[in-house]
């Protein structure tokens, strides 16, 4: 067996907040053997990121390691052991390790990239630092790397700025950056949360390959037990800064012992769940009913009318070279009142954009959005500034990037109160009270209310965003990957909350997610997007059981399951990119531009196929 590359012994880390020390890592020990993958799983906020930051020597300034050792045995130096915890934080020694020997993928890819440098520049920099190459070559290597992590057009993507990329693309850029210098140890903090399952599989495979080639060790932090089951050799389960259970992956999945781990395994949604069954969360909270003046009369809303009609949305983005990129094209769908509409699809296919267009956070090039209020339809695209402002509270949004959607200079209390203040709901005390309630709803300690967003863990931030969106009690919430950073138990808690709200208040959701199981649990109608268009749309069961479009099929095939016996076969499918029309059968490719059309398969199930096809052709294919 290989030697341990990294050994963490009895690590204790505290943070100073408002002059008080909070211990968040309370004596954790773990190890990562060379060439192996160790998965670190645990509840959101349990200190996983903090552990990884300690390894890199990149704790925030208010963080203190006050006990423990972090031993790194660098194979390039014959396994000479260095105690990272002892090193000067910005000293020379630790700088040598960073990037070159230990690579890190940050949890929040969306805000970890410099907004003013192209991604190519940022990735190539890492390469040049540790493995210098002549410029031309370096660019070629970088582009190749971009291709490997699933960028479709590396030439062009090289020159793009992070804000031009979708969440998943940014995450892939981060991946490329960490992998390009081939570190001995890769710390991947939730590296695939923003990726659709096909790309996720591609990326995992890439990591495996590299691991095989160079004996890279991986410390994988993830919430996705499916991923753990598929790639990890050993698993460490942490809860509130303490290790609850640790062992080889086999032991963990087959012989879970600790109640927390058991709860975790129970809490993940799966495709076999019957309609209406609740997820079992570790803790369940009753949804907080909003105080009277915040409440909108829920009551007898007719359940089958459409709340939102979206028709023929189209959006293009200008790019640096003047060419326009079509991000969304001809997207139409209806969302029924009181239902949850799921939107899944390829990363970068325009899901966020659709959400933004509906919210009028961005202006659509064309298309219409009609909101069917009880008082009559509202043409959202046609509202003028004042009307729009009055209309805003009816629709709220949970942003995909929790970091940048929270004002960095406001405390959480202020952030959650903000919508209430803007809309003038409730008195000061009521608002505070509601903030506390909302925090509890999403499973956050109300004590955190006085902290600033940057001092939270990824999942905690995401929950703040959810709490904020719920504050106004809107009719429609557009949830853009609302639970991607949550561990399954908290995720279950939040999903249950959303469901409860839906039931009690008649909330309607547009639910964007890469986690098909979650969508399966939440949504009644589901649309699948690829390359800016909806390729398939239909009721949940139809879509999951009779997927028509090849892309939908490959998606379903690529879902990793938390089951050691049903591992994904990485080598088989996902090399070419499942969303590439070239790999699709002819019927779905479209012979001529504009020849594709939504084809009715019956029961509200449509698929995008060539005009010439019939339903039979398609289901046969």
């Amino acid at each position, binding site marked *: 067996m290989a030697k341990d590359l990294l050994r963490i012994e009895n690590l204790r880390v505290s943070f100073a907040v408002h002059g008080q020390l909070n211990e968040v890592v309370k004596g954790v020990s773990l190890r990562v053997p060379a060439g192996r993958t160790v998965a670190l799983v645990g509840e959101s906020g349990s200190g996983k990121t903090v552990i990884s930051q300690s390894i890199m020597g990149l704790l925030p300034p208010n963080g203190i390691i006050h006990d423990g050792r972090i031993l790194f045995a660098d194979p390039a130096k014959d396994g000479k052991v260095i105690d990272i915890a002892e090193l000067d934080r910005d000293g020379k020694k630790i700088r040598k390790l960073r990037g070159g020997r230990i690579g890190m993928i940050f949890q929040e890819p969306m805000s*970890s990239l410099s907004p003013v440098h192209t991604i190519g520049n940022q990735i190539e920099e890492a390469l040049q630092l540790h493995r210098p190459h002549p410029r031309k070559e370096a660019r070629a290597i970088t582009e190749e790397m971009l291709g490997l992590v699933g960028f479709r057009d590396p030439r062009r993507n090289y020159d793009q700025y992070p804000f031009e990329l979708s969440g998943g693309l940014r995450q892939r850029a981060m991946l490329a950056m960490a992998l390009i210098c081939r570190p001995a140890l890769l710390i991947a903090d939730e590296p695939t949360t923003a990726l659709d399952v096909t790309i996720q599989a591609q990326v995992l495979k890439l990591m495996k390959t590299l691991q095989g080639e160079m004996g890279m060790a991986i410390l994988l932090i993830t919430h996705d037990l499916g991923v753990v089951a598929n790639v990890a050799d050993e698993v460490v389960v942490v809860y509130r800064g303490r290790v609850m259970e640790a062992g080889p992956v086999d032991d963990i999945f087959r012989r879970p012992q600790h109640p927390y781990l058991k709860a975790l395994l129970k809490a993940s949604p799966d495709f076999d769940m019957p309609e209406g069954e609740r997820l079992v969360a570790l803790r369940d909270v009753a949804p907080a009913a909003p105080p009277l003046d915040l409440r909108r009369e829920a009551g007898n809303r007719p359940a089958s009318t459409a709340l939102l009609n979206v028709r023929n949305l189209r959006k293009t983005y200008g790019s640096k070279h003047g060419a326009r990129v079509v991000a969304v094209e001809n997207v139409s769908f209806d969302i029924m009142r009181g239902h949850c509409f799921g939107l899944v699809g390829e990363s970068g296919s325009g899901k966020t954009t659709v959400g933004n267009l509906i919210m009028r956070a961005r202006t659509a090039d064309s298309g219409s959005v009609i909101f069917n209020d009880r008082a009559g339809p509202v043409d959202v695209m046609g509202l003028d500034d004042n009307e729009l402002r009055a209309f805003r509270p009816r629709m709220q949004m949970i942003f995909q990037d929790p970091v940048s959607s929270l004002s960095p200079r406001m405390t959480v209390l202020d952030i959650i109160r903000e919508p209430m203040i803007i809309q003038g709901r409730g008195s000061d005390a009521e608002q505070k009270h509601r903030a506390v309630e909302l925090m509890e709803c999403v499973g956050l300690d109300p004590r955190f209310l006085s902290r600033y967003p940057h001092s939270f863990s990824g999942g905690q931030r995401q929950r703040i965003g959810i709490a904020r969106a719920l504050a106004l009690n809107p009719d429609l919430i557009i949830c853009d990957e609302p639970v991607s950073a949550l561990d399954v138990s908290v995720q279950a808690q939040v999903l249950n909350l959303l469901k409860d709200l839906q039931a009690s208040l008649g909330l309607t959701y547009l639910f964007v997610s890469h986690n098909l199981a979650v969508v399966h649990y939440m949504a009644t109608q589901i649309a699948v997007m690829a390359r800016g268009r909806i390729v398939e749309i239909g009721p949940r069961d139809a879509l999951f059981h009779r997927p028509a479009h090849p892309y939908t099929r490959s998606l379903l095939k690529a879902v990793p399951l938390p089951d050691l016996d049903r591992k994904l076969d990485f080598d088989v499918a996902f090399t070419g990119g499942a969303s590439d029309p070239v790999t699709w059968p002819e019927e779905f490719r479209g012979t001529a531009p504009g020849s594709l059309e939504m084809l009715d398969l019956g029961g509200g199930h449509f698929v995008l196929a060539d005009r010439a096809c019939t339903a039979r052709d398609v289901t046969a294919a």
Partner: protein
Amino acid sequence: MLRYILRRILIMIPTLLVTSALIFTVMELPPSDYFETLQAEMAAQGEHADTSRIEFLKREYGFDRPPVERYFRWIAGFVQGDFGYSFEYEMPVRDVVGERLGLTILVSFSTILMTWLVAFPIGIYSATHPYSWGDYGLTFIGLLGIAVPHFLLALIMMYLANVWFGLSIGGLMDPAYFNQPWSWAKVQSVLAHLWIPVIIIGAGGTGTMVRAIRANLLDELQKQYYVTAKAKGLPPGRALVKYPLRMSLNFFVSHIGDVLPTIVSGSELTAVVLSLQTTGPLLLRALQSQDMYLAGSFLLFLSCLTVVGVLISDIALAFLDPRIRLQGGSSK
């Protein structure tokens, strides 16, 4: 970008027209004119101004015409490169400004260079070592430069430079080199004198800039992308310069255009105190004596530079931050 620049250049025309009209109005605003100023000043010294000559000059330069007409003549001349006539010097404005411009540019340019060269390292140091003794010390020195009035600083420095180094007081070169063609010795003399005005004029600006850099950089140092850069293993210097520093330059770039007008006008009041042969004192004097074409043309020239400077800083800003370049202006 090119279209944007062209459009901006077109917009400059109305801006400059408005500005020139305002400048002209302000110059006309005082109830008296150059000739009255002259008479009053001469009278205070027991001299008298030759009234018939004044009448002659007034007529010759159209002071009997309505202001609107004079304005348009002036603008028309300005466009053709005729900047008018200085009453005080009794020669065309261009000749008056002529030689001083070079020295002004020299002084201002050196000052700006010094400011930047000093302020950046200090600002970065202060931001990366906040509340260290170095930070306090440098802050203190920087604030001294702001707190001590320039004239006082100038007087003290000149006096000491004279006592200690035998440097001639005031001016940009030894008087022996006035009117002399340029020679190595003259250059040396200029260099020997240059440092005083550079330090004095630069003191305030340096202090201000250090504080601004420190404040802005401190904000950026906390950002996640800086952590990413460090995680890549970038040496701190390079990481700092490439990421947080660049981001914190926003304020700096928004003022970069102001450099242009200051380069040609210099720091007027200090230049007067230091008796520099720059355009600043000339402008000041012209303003005080209401030598309106000299002052007006110079001011208009400055405002042309301001407008160009704003354009430059906008372009620089767009280069600095692609978010502004690619999204700014378009309403999403």
